[in-house]
């Protein structure tokens, strides 16, 4: 029993629920008050406090905490391991930055109390999700994550936002139920559902039931992959992002989709074990799907004129890099995947926040309107350029390192066809990424003749919005220049999993 774990889950949740209660009261009375200074301070304080508690808890070392028997023989069980620690750290950084950004940004969307209520609650849930010590506890937080993040998507309350939110909800639910389907089988054929590095398959029980178990694992990968935007359940992403407020898109794309990947990792490496899947049809189909998604996502992003939608497709593509890395089932590729998870979290947050700045300042959503911004907001656009570099995978950014590892892992894996096809697809996709991200930079700095350069006055956003962008850009660069501490940390995880 470790109170810190509980506290790190409960603190933001309670803080969020309090805000929600206030917001619900106002909603019933029909009188929505302005977002007062006091509430702003409360939110910021709660966010900072809970982030520090989470980080402190995470870096305390291996701790575990089991609560009560939830299902027959299954406890609500938390354990901090290296992977969870990594997730919590990444999420906390992103959360703090997006949170401060939102304080400034949400002014023009309204209903801030509700937004921050869900925002804090979601943070608690993600912490719980990262700390979950067994599959069922993870599933619990996974479902809650879907339910609580949905109101962020429909924040504006417009018809299309509601429809997009429902789409998001139903895709996620579909994924979650696929996950549950597989979980039941794992419960039968594993010694335990507690996360054990390298898997806990009960080989004696599996004897003769490999077919159904493989199917179950595959369904699980598909299901959790839905959250990560893997084919065929990817289409919620481009629907949900454009209608959600930009910070909400940022945290959807930056963090929540990663938890789909996390769930897949937990399933494959911590419950089933990579050995069971290696060389089976599941691995091949999975790789095909991941590569297809990588390629198709990039292609669709390339053709998409609306910036946020373009970024959403980009997420589809980039998260499948991670899934592809995981699917290879070799240490280097998994290392690359985890690295990419971190890098992409920061980078995609940054990209969406930048897109938010454009919307906040000018109301522009389409890429072709974004010419000539370099003069008006050079800092923002430079940040954007760093993010674009990182996402494309050009040194010295983090994206390069992670993609390097991914490609290396693929080549090392020795899987016929895929060991060379994978890197090729990654490369093509990187080209496409460059193709869809850089036009904004190019047009921004070199608008050409016909564009009116304007009066040249600076129109940078407020520091509250700008600083998070800069921090994220710095992080993206830092991960490219000094990746070694992170790589060392991650190699611990892979070592554990593959031993």
């Amino acid at each position, binding site marked *: 029993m470790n109170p810190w774990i509980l506290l790190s889950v409960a603190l933001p949740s309670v803080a969020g629920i309090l805000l929600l209660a206030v917001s619900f009261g106002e909603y019933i009375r029909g009188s929505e008050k302005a977002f007062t200074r006091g509430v702003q301070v409360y939110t910021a304080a709660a966010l900072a406090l809970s982030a520090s508690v989470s980080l402190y808890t995470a870096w305390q070392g291996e701790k575990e905490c089991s609560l009560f028997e939830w*299902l*027959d023989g299954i406890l609500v069980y938390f354990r901090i391991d290296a992977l969870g620690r990594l997730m919590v750290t990444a999420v906390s950084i992103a959360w703090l930055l997006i949170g401060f950004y939102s304080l400034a940004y949400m002014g023009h969307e309204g209903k801030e109390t509700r937004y921050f209520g869900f925002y804090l609650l979601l943070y608690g849930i993600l912490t719980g999700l990262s700390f979950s010590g067994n599959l069922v506890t993870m599933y619990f937080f996974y479902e809650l994550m879907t339910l609580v993040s949905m109101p962020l998507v429909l924040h504006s*309350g417009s018809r299309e936002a509601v429809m997009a939110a429902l789409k998001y909800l139903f895709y996620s639910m579909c994924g979650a139920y696929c996950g549950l*389907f597989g979980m039941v089988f794992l419960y039968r054929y594993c010694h335990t559902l507690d996360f054990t590095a390298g898997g806990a398959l009960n080989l004696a029980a599996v004897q003769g039931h490999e077919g159904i178990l493989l199917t179950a694992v595959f369904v699980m990968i598909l299901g959790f992959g839905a959250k990560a935007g893997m084919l065929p359940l990817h289409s919620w992403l481009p629907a949900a992002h454009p209608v959600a407020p930009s910070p909400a898109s940022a945290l959807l794309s930056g963090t929540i989709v990663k938890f789909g990947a996390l769930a897949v990792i937990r399933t494959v490496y911590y419950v089933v074990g990579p050995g069971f899947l290696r060389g089976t049809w599941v691995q091949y189909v999975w790789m095909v799907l991941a590569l297809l998604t990588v390629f198709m996502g990039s292609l669709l992003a390339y053709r998409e004129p609306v910036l946020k939608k373009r970024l959403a497709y980009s997420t589809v593509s980039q998260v499948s890099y991670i899934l592809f890395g995981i699917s290879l089932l070799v240490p280097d590729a998994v290392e690359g995947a985890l690295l990419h998870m971190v890098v992409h979290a920061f980078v995609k947050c940054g990209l969406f926040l930048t897109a938010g700045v454009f919307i906040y300042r000018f109301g522009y959503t389409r890429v072709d309107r974004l010419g000539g911004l370099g003069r008006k907001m050079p800092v923002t656009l430079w940040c954007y350029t760093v993010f674009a570099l990182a996402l494309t995978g050009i040194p010295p950014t983090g994206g390069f390192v992670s993609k390097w590892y991914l490609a290396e892992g693929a080549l090392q894996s020795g899987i016929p066809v895929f060991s060379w096809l994978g890197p090729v697809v990654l490369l093509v996709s990187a080209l496409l990424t460059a193709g869809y991200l850089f036009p904004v930079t190019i047009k921004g700095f070199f608008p050409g003749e016909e564009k009116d350069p304007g009066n040249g006055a600076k129109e940078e956003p407020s520091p509250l919005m700008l600083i998070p962008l800069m921090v994220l850009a710095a992080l993206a660069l830092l991960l490219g220049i000094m990746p070694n501490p992170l790589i060392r940390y991650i190699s611990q995880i892979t070592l554990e999993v593959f031993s």
Partner: protein
Amino acid sequence: MNKILMLIVVLFPIFSGVLIPMLPFRGRRAMCIFIEGCALAESALVFFLLQNPPAETLTVFRFTGNLSITFRVDGMGALFAGMASFLWPLALLYSFEYMKHEHSEKSFFLFYLITYGITLGIALAENILTMYFFFEMLSMATLPLIMHTRTREAFLASRSYLYYMLGGAAFAFIGMIFILTYGTTSSFVPGGVLDTVKIGDKGNLLLLVYVLCFCGFSVKTAVFPFSSWLPKAGVAPTPVTALLHAVAVVNTGAFAAMRVTYYSFGTDLLRGTWAQNVVMALVVITIVYGCSRALKETHLKRRLAWSTVSNLSYILFGVVIMTPLGLVGGMSHMLFHSFMKICSFFCAGAVIYKTGRNYVYELDGLGRKMPKVFVTFTVSSLALMGVPGLCGFVSKWNLCRAAVDSENPLAYAGVAALMVSALLTAIYMLTMMIRAFFPGRDFDYGKLSEAKDPNWLMLLPLAVFVAVMFCFGLRSGPVIRFLQEITGVVRF
């Protein structure tokens, strides 16, 4: 003494029901107090009985030979009786308020109480004849409740209700006769009573009879293709739809199916046969079919009724897995679904009562005007979807676990069906909630000025149900262990 109590428990509500039209009440309030008092006293009696279960059986009456009306308290019956006696007083509380806008209340409460007694009769039945007897009585006693509104719709609904019920009973009758002839006794004995020597080479016939009998009893549980009566029966006042057609009556069908499968035919003879496959296929089809129909339906109560169709087949799915775990799963869903579905129906009833709106597309914006009702509604929807933390997940988990454990390929398909159904449930329930809470940015709330939350009579039951859903959802261990104890008796 305790022995007699079993009879008293069955007869007391029937007599107090009959008293309602006879007593000269001074005003409606007095009548309500009398009825609630009777129901509470009855529930107290039931719980006392379940606390001190009599060891022996009580034979009330003999038809012929060894065919008798006999009562006994056993684990499964205790569960069912306990559930009924927990829900009935709450449902009555709700109906006092709800029935204000309906006519001829007295006859309504008369039959409502009679149904209580008969349901307990089914729970306490010691042998198959007793169960059949009360099963038929139940069909008849609930008929006037469906006819209550006396509209043409009610007329047609009650007609098809009766056709299905009596038809189902006719096929169940075949099974009963078979048990009487080929069984060593007519009582319910864990593990089944069939005498394999007597059956000899009639194995296939036995299976056919089982299928007929199962279908017959399951007509009450609205198994496909006998499900269309349930949505039609939604014309009855909401307390009836909620308590009887989502919980008590329909659960008796599932209860009977359990009794027949586990206590009369015996799962040893049935497991792995074509009969199991047939009934399981039916059940799996129903799970998906009910949900799909619910999705298509725009009438609020009918949508919930179709949802009931699907959820009842979850219970039956547990039953036809034919393992102790399956029975645990089935019973847990029977228990939990009762709370979830009665709660949803009561919420729907509150909306109908307060606003007169019957269709899903009329729910726009009501979440703001009736927040308590709709928050409850949302919680029960989430529970029905099987969101972890609420009770629906627990039973779904147990069902799936049992299905996987049974290593029957068709059961795997059933697990998939459960997942599909959960997804469909999410779609048809949450679209309603979203409608109510997020009607669109420029929705005019002025149109809803008349709508507001109902009074405590309606809200109290809802609050209790929500509490129960959370309790069971977070801490299911004790309940499940209790169910395992019950089923541990069953020999496999």
